[in-house]
């Protein structure tokens, strides 16, 4: 098949390896946090929510790694365009996970406040002393805050460099994680002072920004999946590269229509005549027969100008 994976500049390859490493570290640390939480939380509903959130935040790095592995595979007869779209799909999965996390938090917080549920936090016997579980939870939460705080900040520039929206969403998820953890700490301190609503109020406050980030990412990922023009990595606005590309192509080809879309991290542009976007009915009929001719709307001739290894030069 003709679609081989493009060779990438050395610095991009290097950034990809770094992204992979960061994702594996994320999965390892998150797993340890999930285990630690499971040990401390017991039957507490609020903590079970925090735990489910941590499970959700495992999804983006896993989706990222699977998509990256798929993307490197060459095209086959079954998949003649290769697997670049795996990244687009992973973006939707990551964005959905982030949205679900925000929605879950908002719901839990709202339900707790409306039902006026007073969170009960028990105690734990440590070396013969009965210690309030709240203090132990704060210790675990401090531990759960540090890794995502650092990882998220490391991931963002790498995501921008390799134009990876999955990794960018993963970084947003990390930000959501540490903000939730910090809110949890303030919440438990509040509960310690007898303010039963502090926990839920802190979580509810944070959930808004998580939900906004999640919905924004979901919107972008859906745009990408329905062949929208390439968007910026951090929002639904169209990438300024698109304007530049369209302008230059019009300079060269004159009065043409330019279609630009993105498949994962890569951009593709098609130059088409402005008035005749479809294949003619006659030609379609001659190609696939009368009955189903209506289904063939495009036959494109690609100008392949360069070998895949061009980028290495």
């Amino acid at each position, binding site marked *: 098949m003709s679609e081989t994976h493009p060779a990438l500049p050395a610095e991009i390859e290097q950034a990809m390896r770094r992204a992979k490493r960061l994702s594996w570290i994320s999965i390892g640390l998150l797993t340890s946090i999930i285990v630690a939480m499971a040990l401390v939380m017991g039957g507490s509903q609020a903590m079970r929510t925090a735990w489910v959130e941590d499970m959700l935040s495992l999804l983006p790095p896993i989706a990222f790694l699977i998509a990256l592995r798929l993307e490197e595979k060459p095209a086959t007869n079954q998949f003649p365009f290769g697997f670049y779209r795996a990244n687009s799909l992973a973006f939707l999965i990551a964005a959905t996970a982030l949205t679900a996390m925000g929605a879950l938090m908002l719901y839990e917080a709202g339900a707790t406040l409306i039902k006026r*549920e007073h969170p*009960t936090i*028990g105690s734990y016997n440590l070396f013969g002393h*009965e210690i*309030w579980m709240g203090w132990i939870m704060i210790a675990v939460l*401090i531990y759960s805050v540090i890794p995502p705080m650092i990882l998220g900040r490391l991931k963002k520039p790498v995501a921008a460099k390799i134009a990876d929206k999955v990794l960018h969403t993963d970084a947003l998820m990390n930000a959501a994680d540490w903000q939730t953890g910090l809110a949890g700490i303030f919440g438990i301190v509040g509960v310690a*002072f007898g*303010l039963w609503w502090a926990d839920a109020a802190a979580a509810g406050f944070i959930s808004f920004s998580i939900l906004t980030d999640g919905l924004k990412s979901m919107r972008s990922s859906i745009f990408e999946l329905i062949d929208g023009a390439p968007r910026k990595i951090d929002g639904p606005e169209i990438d300024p590269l698109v304007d530049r590309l369209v302008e230059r192509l019009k300079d060269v080809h004159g009065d043409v229509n330019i279609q630009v879309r993105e498949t994962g991290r890569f951009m593709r542009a098609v130059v088409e005549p402005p008035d005749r976007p479809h294949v003619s009915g006659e030609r379609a009929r001659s190609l696939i027969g009368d009955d189903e001719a209506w289904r063939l709307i495009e036959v494109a001739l690609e100008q392949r100008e360069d070998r895949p290894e061009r980028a290495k030069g």
Partner: protein
Amino acid sequence: MCARVFRVLAATAALGGLLAGCDLPRDPEETLEMVRGKELRVGVLQSDRNAEQDRAVVEILAENLQSQPVYTEGDAHRLFEELDRGHIHLIIGGVPKSTPFKKAGFSKAVGPLYGSAEEEKRVLAVRAGENAFLLRVNRAIEAAKAAGASS
């Protein structure tokens, strides 16, 4: 960047340590303050072997808080309702760990639930969210266990 993050976290940890030293946690509905030096109103589900052993915990708790235990017997629905309203402070006498009454706070396990078909742990119930009082109850349970082990 990292140095700043760690300074913030260190400050948080220090604050946490400081708070742990204070008289915290506190009760939103001040059960501990109401009980200290006054009546400790205890609901008993059933006067059986479970209640007998739970009483040992109540005695220690009452002694620690210099309060006077007052027992009332009643069915579960009534007692949990009274607990939620703050009319009683504690429910004893065979509260299973997996109780369907969720609107309450539960202590650590006191012992096995006698008279249950399945193997089940027995706990005590306090008003939901009264964390300071619950901590005193749990300490009394530990003390009762230690006393039971030494005798």
